[in-house]
């Protein structure tokens, strides 16, 4: 209950100010451009599913950027404004505070993602793709968004500065994003671990292609849970600092 109260407040805060709208509008603009120029703008004839795969490829990247932008303010801004006192002295546990922040950010991310539905809708109407492919692709997008949101919440607990929170979140996300590169320069078993850790290349591509992979869903859920627990520990640790 406390988590939903916190989430409701965060959603309202995103929508009261202009920052939330600017981020959503900016990301949608970039996504629209990428869709128009690269996914749709090929000179040669392409299958509809290839266009859809390209859409989800860009959608995945934009969602990661949006998650970082949405979460860099969450707890960092509360600390800067001094309103974190309201949360820490409430009956909400540290876990409920973190989960509430996560739900709020995910709700905004979901809203933004929902506004992109017209693009696969165009492919569906004018081409030949299955609804299952679209649904699985979006499931992957939300999984990727969930991981980046959890990392962003964690980053936001560390610093008062939103910029610093954004930077640390970006560093962690890029590390997970490029771990497949590091895998090429290491020996087994480290190379196997690093290759498996890649949140995009290893785990998103199947969703992009319309293949529902349970192991990737479990991976996304696990990484999300781990970083939310880290965030909870940071908040709890602050009571001892």
């Amino acid at each position, binding site marked *: 209950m406390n988590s939903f*109260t916190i989430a409701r407040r965060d959603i309202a*805060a995103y929508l009261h100010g202009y920052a939330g709208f600017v981020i959503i509008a900016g990301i949608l603009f970039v996504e629209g451009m990428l869709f128009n120029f690269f996914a749709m703008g090929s000179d040669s004839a392409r299958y509809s599913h290839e266009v859809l795969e390209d859409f989800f490829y860009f959608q995945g990247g934009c969602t990661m950027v949006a998650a970082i932008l949405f979460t860099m303010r969450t707890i960092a801004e509360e600390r800067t404004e001094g309103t974190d006192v*309201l949360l820490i*002295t409430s009956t909400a546990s540290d876990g409920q505070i973190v989960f509430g922040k996560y739900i709020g950010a995910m709700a905004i991310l979901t809203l933004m993602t929902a506004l992109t539905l017209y693009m696969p809708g165009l492919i569906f109407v004018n081409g030949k793709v299955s609804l299952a492919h679209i649904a699985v692709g979006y499931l992957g997008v939300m999984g990727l968004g969930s991981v980046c949101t959890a990392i962003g919440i964690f980053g936001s607990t560390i610093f008062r500065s939103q910029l610093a929170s954004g930077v640390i979140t970006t560093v962690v996300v890029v590390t997970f994003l490029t771990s497949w590169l590091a895998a090429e320069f290491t020996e087994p078993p480290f190379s196997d671990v690093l290759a498996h850790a890649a949140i995009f290349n290893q785990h998103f591509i199947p969703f992009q292609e319309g293949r529902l992979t349970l192991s990737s869903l479990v991976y996304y859920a696990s990484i999300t849970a781990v970083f939310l627990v880290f965030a909870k520990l940071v908040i709890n640790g602050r009571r001892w*600092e």
Partner: protein
Amino acid sequence: MIQVNDLTRYYGDFPAVQGVSFTVERGEIIGILGLNGAGKSTTLKILAGLLLPSSGTVVIDGTDMVSNPDTMRRHIGFLPEDPPLYLDMTVRSFLLHIGKLKGMNAGELSKRLPEVLALTDLVDREHQVIQTLSHGYRKRVGIAQAIIHDPKLVILDEPISGLDPAQIVEMRDVIRGLGKDRAVMLSSHILKEISMTCDRVIVIHKGRMASTVELGGDDAGPERIMLTVRADADALRSWATSQPQVAQYNETQNQDGLVTAVVDLTGDIREDFLAEVAKAGFGIRLVERPIAELETLFLSVIQEEVAA
């Protein structure tokens, strides 16, 4: 009702608070005094649940706060020096939000909200966006959020800082109102304000409890009187110490032919004593409640620090 036992808090190796113990009863207003860095804010933050103690217990109605922090925060309201407010919300929506965070349901909130708005004199501002409120009204909203859940203990950190004289008087009334049916703890650097608002003062120095002083609320006690008289100091002292109704006599000031003295009487015989003073030929210029004791006590506690 609220028992603080041997509270200790370290920041690294530095002991910010050491062995602080006291009790607070419902209906009591307690002031915490101390120099900057004395440990009063740390003490208040531990009581508010913002920090955890290194050792010691805080027991509210028999339940230990450290063992049950999430539950016990339901019984504590906290206002930091800068009121924590969501500026984009209206007063009403903000207080409803905080009430929910404090575990209240819709029924409890609809009953409690009008009471809190009335107590903090915010009825006319209920639908105003907080960003548009003056500093004084923001403080009131801060107090309102601290009491929306009807806590047993309200903690106010520097509640009058930044307020103008009129707002200070109003805030004093609000705090007294709070203290009628709950325990209130407040910190302030202004000794006069503490002495005018609190029933008891706890002096913290270098992390330790240096002293406690009973102030008796609005009155320092019916036996004590502070008067400024146009007289020769020796003559007044000689006369006063020879009077049977005078238990103790202390001069606190002597300049421009005026003497200020604090007199402890043998009973509540202030009218009779003042009549005797006038009859003895001393010109009474001013009679007031003695607050010098608190200043004297506080200064003596920090004397070592000042000398250093």
